[in-house]
């Protein structure tokens, strides 16, 4: 029974992995590892993986041996057991331990057994025993109490010695009992006890059945559970070593990644070669080529190269020939070099000129270049254009340079400098004039003719002019096709278009004038026009001003028509307006217009102040002088509008509508053309503008002679003047009305421009100034009589606040008294009001009010503070700066607030502080892969730190000691005793 049970136990306690099948394990290993077993079995966690394996192996093998034992005959086991019983406990316990050695002795003894006589045998046997004894003493390291065992071992040996090599199976010496006895451990106590009990039972009463079976072993899943549990605990423990590190890193203010510092030691070449693997595409390609060529070793390649060199044998003659050749070439080169050097040194201007000319002759023209390489041509054109632009901007060749200035200051005495200056000027002119060459070829050719006398520049000029022509041509070509480079830029295109337009206009003008005017007048007019044109051209053409002159020129028929229609509309509208208007028109027309304008931006009108108006009138006169300049210039365009004519108009204009006059003006313009002479005269007087304009202005004022252009100008100017507005109240009102009507008028729309807006703003500012003045006055009053106005206001405010609250509460409370509205009373017409009730209610109301007021006063914190209003409620404006609760990492409000208190910026901190304060939490070095944290690395760092610290301490101590020694010696020298 026991026999069948024993193996079972083994099988269950030492679980065999299902997938495991290893037969090549010898017994000795299985037995010898009994100690290991103990450990592995009871503390399997502490074993490493390899040991675990061993465990499984050993357990496996043991179970195997056990099963073998099972197959052994029953008798044998019994015998063994009996024998064991007879022996003392000590011996039986330690049998297993020396088992190996008995085996050895067995084999030794058995060898001699069959061949030698018994005496000799015995002698030898004794010797052997001695040897074995000594060996077993050594082997006692496995056992704890050695000496006793040696003595007892003799008995064991005698027993085994009788058995021969073949007669005594080794296993017979090892019984299960003895095996179990050898095991020391509390865990197996029960098992042992059970076994003993079994034995006793077997010995004493075999018939009795075993009532106490061994505990049922755990099921596989349960076992797994245990291992898992233990495993988890273990890994938990292992992983917890990171706890401190993690905590530390979390609390660090800044972390710099990657954690490992770059190694300072450079890798060796061999290491580099070893680690090298082709990564980039090029490397791979090279690798591939090398592989294809089957060239892998450096040695091999050198050998091959050597071989090749050996093959290429050259004869001596050949070498000589080659040498000669080389020498010839060298000498030629030397000669050439010499020549070049000499030529370089020549200072003659003439020579240089000749050289240059030669070069130019040989150089290709633009056309040719274009034929060959259009891109190149384009770039050249661009270059030339750029040069011109630069010249235009910098005016480098005008007498602006330091050198010329100085030269001019000193007085140009020698011819050379004068020539140089002249030449420079010429260059500048050339460069500037080149613009014309783009559009008109004639001029450039003229220019070249005039320049012919100059010998030095002649060729150049020709060439350049030629180039210019080319450029003009090419520009056209390029413009027609695709626009690239500088011409593709928007402003360049605009300029070109403008030029075109201008040319067109000019052409039209000429043609028209040619029809209308005759002879000298026409030609002179042309000149004037040109002047005007130049005025219009330039910077003023940008923005809103650009179109105005054209509009007033009225040479474009279309525009003329448009304008006419506009004017007609205006007229119609004005006709509809009140008859009062006529009167209005008698008054100051400019002011009238101005008012119109001011109302457009809706600036508040001021009170009439005569003085101011007068002042303004003076100012206005001055301004109008300026205005009239423009006026004149407009008139200039109005061609031949004579003075007399003008005056006539003025006369007519009296008492008439503005617009009509305008119309008349327009009509007269046509007439004026006929009277060109006078107009011409007038135009000639442009230079003496100022005086006349003043006069004219006066007449203008009286005669109320508006002009389209002038009107606008005035609007602009007058809007600057804030005082203007107060000049005529009635007019303001009327004009506002008028404005409403005319709001859709195109002309007014036209008038809006940024300048005006700006001016209005200015007016606003002045407006504010006035108010500010009041404020300052207020302040003065305040200073003079403190605590009068403001105290009252403050009190009022506070009172209102309280009253509001009272009203609110009262309203709520009165609901209970009155009940729902519309209930408890009769409604409708003719119902008598219950005055008594009303009175009662009022009484209650008053009472309640007083009560509430009292309570509020009581509750308010500022009720006792006279000059304070405390807001106890939520202020909406301040919610922006309030946090609902203390944010996460902070524990209290104070903590959070203190964290905010110190500002971070440069204004409040020193540079170093600032840098420290703005340090980011995480710094990642550029372009480096961040590896996961490594324990070994950290340990290393820690150790290094520790070492350093120690060393520092040592150094410190050392230095101190030496110092103290020195001090001592010093003191001794001084004769002071030191304890």
């Amino acid at each position, binding site marked *: 029974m026991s026999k069948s049970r024993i193996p079972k136990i083994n099988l269950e306690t030492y679980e065999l992995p299902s*997938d495991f099948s290893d037969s090549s394990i010898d017994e000795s290993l299985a037995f010898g590892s009994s100690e290991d077993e103990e450990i592995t079995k009871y503390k399997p966690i502490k074993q*490493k*993986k390899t040991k*675990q394996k061993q465990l499984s192996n050993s357990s496996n093998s043991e179970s195997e041996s056990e099963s073998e034992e099972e197959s052994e005959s029953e008798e044998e086991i019994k015998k063994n057991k009996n024998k064991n019983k007879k022996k003392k406990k000590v011996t039986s316990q330690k049998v297993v331990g020396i088992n190996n050695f008995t085996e050895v002795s067995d084999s030794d003894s058995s060898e001699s057994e069959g061949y030698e006589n018994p005496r000799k045998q015995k002698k030898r046997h004794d010797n052997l025993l001695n040897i074995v004894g000594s060996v077993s003493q050594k082997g006692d390291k496995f056992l704890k109490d050695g000496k006793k065992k040696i003595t007892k071992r003799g008995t064991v040996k005698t027993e085994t010695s009788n058995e021969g090599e073949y007669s005594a199976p080794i296993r017979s010496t090892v019984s299960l009992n003895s095996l179990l006895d050898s095991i020391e451990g509390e865990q197996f106590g029960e098992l042992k006890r059970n076994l003993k009990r079994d034995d006793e039972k077997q010995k004493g009463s075999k018939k009795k059945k075993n009532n106490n079976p061994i505990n049922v072993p755990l099921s596989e*899943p349960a076992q*797994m*559970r245990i*291992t*898992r*549990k233990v*495993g*988890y605990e*273990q*890994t*938990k423990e292992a*992983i*917890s070593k*990171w*706890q401190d590190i*993690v905590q530390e*890193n979390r609390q660090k203010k800044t*972390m710099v*990644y990657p954690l490992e510092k770059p190694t300072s030691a450079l890798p060796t070449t061999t290491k580099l070669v070893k680690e090298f*693997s*082709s990564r980039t*595409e090029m490397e*791979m*390609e090279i690798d*591939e080529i090398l592989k294809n060529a089957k060239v892998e070793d450096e040695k091999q390649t050198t050998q091959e190269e050597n071989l090749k060199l050996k093959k290429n044998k050259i004869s001596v003659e050949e070498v000589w020939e080659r040498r000669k050749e080389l020498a010839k070439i060298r000498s030629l080169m030397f000669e050439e070099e010499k020549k070049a050097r000499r030529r370089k040194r020549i200072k003659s201007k003439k020579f240089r000129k000749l050289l240059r000319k030669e070069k130019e002759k040989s150089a290709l023209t633009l056309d040719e270049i274009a034929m060959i390489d259009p891109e190149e041509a384009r770039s050249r054109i661009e270059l030339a254009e750029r040069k011109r632009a630069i010249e235009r901007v910098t005016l480098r060749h005008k007498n602006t340079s330091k050198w010329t200035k100085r030269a001019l200051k000193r007085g140009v005495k020698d011819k050379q400098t004068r020539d140089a200056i002249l030449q420079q000027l010429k260059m500048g002119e050339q460069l500037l004039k080149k613009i014309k060459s783009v559009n008109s070829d004639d001029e450039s050719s003229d220019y070249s003719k005039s320049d012919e006398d100059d010998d030095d520049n002649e060729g150049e000029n020709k060439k350049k002019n030629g180039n210019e022509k080319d450029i003009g041509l090419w520009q056209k070509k390029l413009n027609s096709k695709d626009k690239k480079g500088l011409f593709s830029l928007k402003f360049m295109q605009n300029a070109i278009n403008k030029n075109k337009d201008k040319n067109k206009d000019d052409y039209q003008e000429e043609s028209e004038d040619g029809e209308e005017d005759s002879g000298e007048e026409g030609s002179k007019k042309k000149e004037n026009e040109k002047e005007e044109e130049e005025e219009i051209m330039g910077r003023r053409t940008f923005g809103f001003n650009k179109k105005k002159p054209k509009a007033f020129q009225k040479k474009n028929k279309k525009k003329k028509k448009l304008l006419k229609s506009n004017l007609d509309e205006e007229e119609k509208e004005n006709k509809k307006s009140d008859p009062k208007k006529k009167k209005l028109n008698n008054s100051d027309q400019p002011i009238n217009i101005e008012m119109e304008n001011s109302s457009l931006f809706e600036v508040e009108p001021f009170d009439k102040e005569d003085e101011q108006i007068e002042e303004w009138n003076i100012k206005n006169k001055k301004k109008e002088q300026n205005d009239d300049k423009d006026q004149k210039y407009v008139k200039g365009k109005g061609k031949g509008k004579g003075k007399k004519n003008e005056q006539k108009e003025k006369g007519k204009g009296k008492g008439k509508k503005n617009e009509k006059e305008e119309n008349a003006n327009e009509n007269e313009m046509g007439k004026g053309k006929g009277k060109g002479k006078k107009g011409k005269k007038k135009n000639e007087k442009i230079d003496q503008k100022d005086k006349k304009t003043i006069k004219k202005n006066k007449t203008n004022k009286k005669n109320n002679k508006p002009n389209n252009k002038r009107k606008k100008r005035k609007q602009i100017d007058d809007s600057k003047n804030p005082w203007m507005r107060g000049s005529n109240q009635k007019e303001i009102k009327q004009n506002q009305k008028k404005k409403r009507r005319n709001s859709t008028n195109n002309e007014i729309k036209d008038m809006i421009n940024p300048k005006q807006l700006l001016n209005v703003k200015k007016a606003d500012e002045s407006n504010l100034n006035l108010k500010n003045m009041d404020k300052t006055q207020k302040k003065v009053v305040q200073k003079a009589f403190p605590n009068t106005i403001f105290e009252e206001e403050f009190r009022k405010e506070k009172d209102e606040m309280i009253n509001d609250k009272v009203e609110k509460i009262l309203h709520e409370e009165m609901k209970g008294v009155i009940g729902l509205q519309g209930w408890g009373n009769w409604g409708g017409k003719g119902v008598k009001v219950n005055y008594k009730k009303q009175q009662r209610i009022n009484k209650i109301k008053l009472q309640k009010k007083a009560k509430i007021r009292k309570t509020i006063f009581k509750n308010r914190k500022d009720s006792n503070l006279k000059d304070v209003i405390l807001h106890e409620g939520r202020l909406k404006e301040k*919610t*922006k*700066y*309030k*946090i609902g609760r203390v*944010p996460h990492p902070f524990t209290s409000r104070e903590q*959070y607030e203190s964290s*905010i208190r110190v*500002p*971070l*910026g440069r*204004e*409040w901190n020193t*540079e170093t502080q*600032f840098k420290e*304060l*703005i*340090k*980011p939490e*995480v710094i*990642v070095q*550029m*372009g*480096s*892969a*961040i*590896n*996961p*944290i*490594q*324990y070994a690395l950290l340990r290393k760092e820690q150790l290094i730190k520790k070492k350093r610290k120690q060393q520092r301490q040592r150094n410190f101590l050392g230095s101190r000691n030496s110092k103290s020694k020195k001090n001592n010696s010093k003191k001794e020298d001084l004769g002071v005793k030191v304890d």
Partner: protein
Amino acid sequence: MDTEIKIISRRRKKYVRSTNRDINIVHRNPNPESHPFEQAREYKRALNSVKMDRIFAKPFLTAMTGHIDGIYCLERHPKYLSRVVSASADGEIRVWDLMRRKTVANVQAHNQFIRGITISKPNGNFFFSCSDDQTIKQWRFSDLRSNVNSEYQKKKKPVSTFISEETLRGIDHHWSRHTFVTSGDTVQVWDHKRSKPFQKLTFGTTETSSAIKFSPVQKNVFATAGSDRSVGLYDLKISTPIRKVILKNQTNAISWNPMEAFNFTVANEDQNCYTFDMRRLDRALCIHNGHLNAVMDVDYSPTGREFVTASYDHTIRIFNIRSISSRDVYHTRRMKRVFVAKYSGDSKFIISASDDMNIRLWKSEASKPLLPVDRKEKNAIKYRESLKKRYGYLPEIRRISKHRHLPRVLYFMKQQKKKSLQARARKYRNMKMNNPSSVKQTKMRKRFIVKQLK
């Protein structure tokens, strides 16, 4: 009359240092009276910087095309920042160069769905792919070249092929040894040099695990996500599974924190991510919510401070490891369901792969400049950053910094989700009020855990 003329004059000496080594002269008036309202001013600056952040937030860098099927696997190289390997559902593997933004090499590796890719860890010379065809193939990077040469096309063969007896759902390589693990019916442990797995680990239950991930710090530990909604932990040192937690929904991906050994985050089907401490699995350290559909992937930044998640809702989100809501959300009109999102090795970029066959490259910080910046600008950025941090709790700043535009559909989904969550909370509250015994009080962080199997 005497007139006083005031002239603005600057002496060069006063503001230009004489030598290069001279200290920079800082023109600062230290008088505090000349710098009043410091808090108000800094608040305003913080506000402006937050606004600027929003203005300059342009995280999307590029989309890389090449695959002709949805991309389900993506792995970055441990050493080289610009190298990335991706695998699509049709069995094609592509190696990408992020710098040049193009494919460096490609192979038709398998005939079936590729379930996982992993790169051999210490050196990264090889990568492994496992597929539905029950094979694992080992590839050498240098064998795959894009310059198409007939010889090399032939050479595009795996270094070795491992045949598994079980289905394969995921693969991950050990961080220092020549071993890798595959997930499937059981967890198999393989060696480079052995054709058969030298270990098989199970909990004894019949679940298939999908995601599998080694811990980069405690290298013998790895985690799997099982089909029984579980997250399992294994230890290779003692070669046993050690613990399992069953959640309410299935887990799609796992990522370990590379700087905090015991923490890992799990991407769940229930639109949330959960960060666990390996030592206490009965509750989550943090619940990260924000996605509006299943979270498909999660990957830690190598700094261990943030992680990125990819979701079925067509977006990527970036979370701080300790915050509930996401720091940022990325989406483009053409990006469909995102299956993988990975941080780059230097934590500056995010690589995502989605159903629309594209790999996308994002900046991990949307408004940070990519090019090297001037010292002054750097300081200004740092200053702004610290101001933002300081005043970040104030409502206006928080609102602006948190404000993100979502696609219309997602926006409405979000509203809906909010409503439903509110309704649930209300119901819970009511139940608690009316019948307290019927309500089990559990903390939020424990609510999603069904049980822990020991």
